[in-house]
Each structure stands twice: as structure tokens, then as C-alpha cells.
């Protein structure tokens, strides 16, 4: 067994300080790298990803395409590069780019390079078609709470509904997210750290789909959760929520 790491301990969340931490580190790094801009291009190529997709930048964003890609540094020290267009999908990287702190290597602590590869792969695939506003609208079709809770959108799909997926992203996502549980959770954590809403949605929806229709015992087994109820407490809970247990 692994004696070094604590498998049950939650990973510390760098969420709140993450941005400041990354900015400070990036600023320090770019100060040293400013003297030798050519070195960035000569840095080792990113680890070979399993896919061979290339991001096709739109013609109108030429200035973005011309700027050098960002460099993310994983917890094991490996560097992974991500194009600027793909980096837009991460709210955190977007802010760094806007503040011009993204020139040097950006640390991504607690994200292993394999996971970072996957995340970058996702962003490179979705990057060219990413529209922050459309994404936000899709996430919040209801008016903001608590102004009006009147129901507006029904989920019964119209017969004449054409699923707007012109680039075949949904099928790609389905293949992409077929990961073992551990990798899936790490991707979710990385998406949370880098603040990539779409990937976080994809990951959380996938886990939710795994849970649907199952019994509590099955959930505990699949996700290795310990039952910390006493038998009396559990019986009481099942009685209170009997509506959920009947067919």
C-alpha cells in the first residue's frame, strides 16, 4: 500500500487563494523569464496526449492565435502547454491573461500531469467553439432566484427539437468522460481549481448519472463511502423518507 500519501485526507482546496497564488507565482516567474522570451518556445513539448486533435483558431482571433501558448506546471513538475484559445475556458486562466500575468509558467499544484493533460485536451477540443454567454444561459435557463419561482421551462423535449450540436461535441464528451472513478474525480477537482464550468458540469453530471436509480447500499459500495449511521438512526431516516423507497 502507499505509505506516503493519506488516501482519505481531502486535498486542500486552493480555491480562494488559488488566483492570488497563481498570479504571484506567474509574476515572479515572468520577471525572470522576461529576459529570455525565446526560451519559452524551446521548452520541452507537452507530453503526448492520447488524442491528436488540433485546435483550429477562428480567423478573426488572430491576435490570440499568434500569442504563445500558456504553460501550466503540474504537481509533479511536468509542464503542459495550452493554447490561449483553449485557456479561455478556464475562468482563472482567462483572468490571468487579461491581467497579463500569463506569460510565465503557471503552477497548478495538486493536479497531476496526466490529469492536466486530460483537462487541456478537453479545452483544446471545446475552445474554438466556446461562447461564455451561451454557456451561462444554458446553465441558468430560469430567472435568478428568488425573484420569481414561476415555472418557465419544461423538460419535455419538443418533437421538432433539433439538438444544437453541430460540431459533434456531445459524442466526443461522452467518450472523453468514460474514465475510471478516481481519474474522473481528479478531473473534477482540476476543473474546479481552474474554474472550467463546462468541464465541471460534465463531470458532475456524469457522476450523478452513475448514481441514478441505485440503492444506498450500492452507492456506498461503488463510491467506498462508510456508513456512519447507527442502525436506529438509519431506520429512522428510512422511515422519514419512506416516500423515496417505495416504487
Amino acid at each position, binding site marked *: 500500500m502507499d505509505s506516503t500519501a493519506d488516501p482519505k485526507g481531502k486535498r486542500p482546496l486552493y480555491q480562494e487563494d488559488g488566483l492570488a497564488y497563481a498570479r504571484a507565482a506567474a509574476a515572479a516567474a515572468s520577471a525572470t523569464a522576461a529576459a529570455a522570451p525565446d526560451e519559452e518556445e524551446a521548452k520541452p513539448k507537452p507530453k503526448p496526449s492520447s488524442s491528436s486533435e488540433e485546435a483550429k483558431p477562428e480567423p478573426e482571433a488572430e491576435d490570440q492565435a499568434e500569442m504563445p501558448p500558456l504553460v501550466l506546471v503540474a504537481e509533479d513538475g511536468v509542464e503542459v502547454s495550452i493554447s490561449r484559445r483553449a485557456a479561455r475556458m478556464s475562468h482563472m486562466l482567462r483572468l490571468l491573461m487579461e491581467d497579463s500575468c500569463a506569460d510565465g509558467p503557471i503552477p497548478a499544484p495538486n493536479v497531476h500531469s496526466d490529469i492536466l493533460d486530460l483537462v487541456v485536451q478537453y479545452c483544446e477540443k471545446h475552445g474554438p467553439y466556446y461562447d461564455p454567454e451561451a454557456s451561462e444561459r444554458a446553465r441558468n435557463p430560469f430567472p435568478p432566484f428568488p425573484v420569481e*419561482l414561476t415555472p418557465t421551462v419544461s423538460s419535455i423535449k419538443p418533437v*421538432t427539437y433539433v439538438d444544437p450540436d453541430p460540431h459533434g461535441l456531445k459524442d466526443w464528451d461522452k467518450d472523453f468522460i468514460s474514465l*475510471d472513478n478516481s481519474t474522473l474525480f481528479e478531473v473534477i477537482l482540476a476543473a474546479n481549481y481552474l474554474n472550467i464550468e463546462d468541464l465541471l458540469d460534465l463531470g458532475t*453530471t456524469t457522476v450523478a448519472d452513475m448514481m441514478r436509480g441505485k440503492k444506498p447500499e450500492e452507492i456506498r459500495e461503488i463510491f467506498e463511502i462508510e456508513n456512519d449511521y447507527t442502525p436506529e438512526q438509519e431506520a429512522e431516516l428510512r422511515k422519514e423518507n419512506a416516500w423515496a423507497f417505495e416504487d
Partner: protein
Amino acid sequence: MASSSSSPPVLGADANDPATRAATLLEDLPQEIIDKILVRLPSKDIGRFRAVCTSWGSATSTPQFMLEHHRRQPSLPIINGNGRPASLVVLRDTSARASNQHLWPFRPGFKHRSEYRLLGSCDGFLVVCRRSQFRSRFYAFNPVIHKHALLAQPQVGQSFYNTMIGFYRDHPTGEYRVLWVSRSHHSWSHHLCKPGLYILTVGSDRPRYVGFRTTKDLPPSEHIMFLQRLCCSSYYSPPVHHRGSLHWCSYGTSDIIVFDTQAESFRWMQSPTELWPSKLFDMKGMLALWAGSARYYNGFTIMDVWVMRDYEAEIWAFMYRIDLSTVEASRQLYSTSFYKKNKRKFKKKKLLDSPVRLFEDMAVLNNRELLIMYDENKVLRCNIDGKFLGIVNLGKGQYYMWLTQHRLQESIVPIPYHETQEEDEESVFSTGCV
């Protein structure tokens, strides 16, 4: 497909590091992410998963979680199958294969369905009335978590007749309120009877008397008539809660009665049309109205839909028109192609073959499609261009039903109610169904 193995292989074991990282488990995720996962689950799954571990139990029981879960649920129409065998059903899917959810506790075989009437719906709570020979009882219930509460009526007694005309959520306080009209059984003579408007906050044990106030001065002799018309209007179609006011299409006149829930007074609004029948409904957060024209004795053949573009200025805009002849023509095409595909479904073919003669009622399915009740007791589905998309059936072979104007948006939020309630042993809520 995502794997669901119980011991996930550790990534990177074969690639880089011999001293591999320990597998990441679900519980390693921060609570806010676990909440994001759980909130996507259907209501019953959440109820069951409260038993998984204590942290899931407490996380899924906070008001914020339950409200966020409710917010994500779709708003689905409730259909009345009149017990053939289904009574009240929440329509999830209009195809024959789907099993639509029977509204608890109105399961098939439910005996007293003629005594119960669905009166109000708001945010996952419903209000139903049971009128038996000597008394009426009103209940608020949450059909998902199987909880109900008896509602306190104003002026209970044999000489009084209480009608519920509105059920809404008061936004500033978050309270759920019931609007009552209390009348005397005996006579409508204005000498003997005072009009009574009452408001009950769900959870309290006594309704509050509200003076009858309107923006234009009505002589007392007209108060009673007004309240009577209000009761008829509410019976015909429940009010729409929009911008803090309840709106009814006035039965028999071509205006809209509006009750301001903050000022607790009535005013009138002009309807865009003088046609009758007409009903108000909510369309994507805007106030909308449909009206039938080309009217026959018990139906109509043209339906116009209006939406209120500017609420302050009371300006309506015409949206679209559904003409029965268009729908009938497209039904014929549909029926022909259906027969070619499904030679065996005789019963459905027979129904599909019968022409659509008269429209009677309408409910919105989603932003592109409608349900239209036709020929007394059948319901068809069409889109807003008038294209026929099929007949609705509620389950195996059940093609006869009525529309209610009520909708359910599921919620696992408990009803706020008084603990010391007298239990009504006879009500359908207490017998058998858990």
C-alpha cells in the same frame, strides 16, 4: 460508458511512478462539489441517498439545497384522467411507452375522485378540496414527499360556504398563502350577507379577514356580485401569479381581475380581446392569454395567443394563431403515415382517424408545443405552427382525459404547517398511501 467498478484502478500505475498515488474517492471532493452532484438527481434518489451517510443526509436537507434542487426541476402539466384508470397524472412524456407519474395520492383505483378537486398549484405544493355532503376540507400537500396539511378555513359552520380562489407565494416573506372567499349559504341578498375575503398563511391556524378593497368604487350591492364572479372565474381557471399580483380572466366579461398581494386590493386590466373562452397562463415569465373564436356551442375552432409585452402600460402583443383546419389537415397526413408504419395499432388508428371537430381547452407543454383538448375529452399535441404531432395517452390505452390548468414542479421542501393539526382519518392522504 463511465465505469462503476468498486475498486477503481489507480491511474498512472503503469506509466510513470512506481510509488503510485492513492486513488481519489468521492469523499475527497469538497462538499460544495458533492452538493453539485447530488442536486442533479431526481427527488426519489435524493430521498434514498440521505441514508448513505450522515454528511449526505445533512447536506441534502438544508433549505438552500432543496430550493436549488426544486429550481432545476421541469414544470410539468397535470392531466385529469378521470379514473379510467388513472386520475390525476403528471405528464412527463406523451408517448405511449412512457409511464406517467400518478399524482400521489390519486392512484388508479382511487375511490372518491369525484369528491376531490385540484384547486391550486405553486412551487411543488398543491391544494385540493374535498366536498362531502356536510362539510368541505381543504388540504395543501407535497405529492413528492407525501406530506399534507389541513388548511384552516374562515367561518367554519354549516351556513357558510368557503371557496378558495388563489394559492400563491408571497415573495417578500416567502410565505405560502391561500385566498378565500367566504359566503353565506342562505341568500345572496345584500341585506343578510357581508362579502368575506380572507387570507390564510399556510402554517398558521387562522385565516385573516381582509377588507374588500378595489381601485374603483363599487357600491356595496355590487360587492357580492363581484365576489361571485371572482369565484366563477377561479373555478373556470386558476389565477396566474405574475409580478406580485394574481390575475383572473373574468368570467363573462372581457376584462382581467387583478389582486395586488401587497396592497391586498383589487383592480381591473383590459383583456386584449373580447372573445370567450379565454384563459391566462404563464409563458416564460410573461403573462399570456389564449382566446377562442369562431365559437360553437361547446367549443371553438380558432385560438389566438397573446402575450403582455409591457406590463406597466398594459400593452398586449399578438403571438400566434392556431386554426383547427390547419391542425385537422396535418392530422390527416399524420394518420396516413402512421397507418403505414403501424398496421397493428387498431385502437390508436381509430382515434387518429376521427377528425378534430372542436377545440375546448389548451395547456402549454413547452415553449414550442401545446396540448389542446378537443371533442370533449381527447387531447392532442401540436406545435405553435399548427402542426399535429400526436394524440396524448396517459398509459396503456387511456386516451380520454381533461386538462387541468395546474402544473407541478417537483420539490422536496416540507410544507410549513402547524404541529397541532387535527388528523382527518377519512382523507385519502391518511389511509394506506404512505
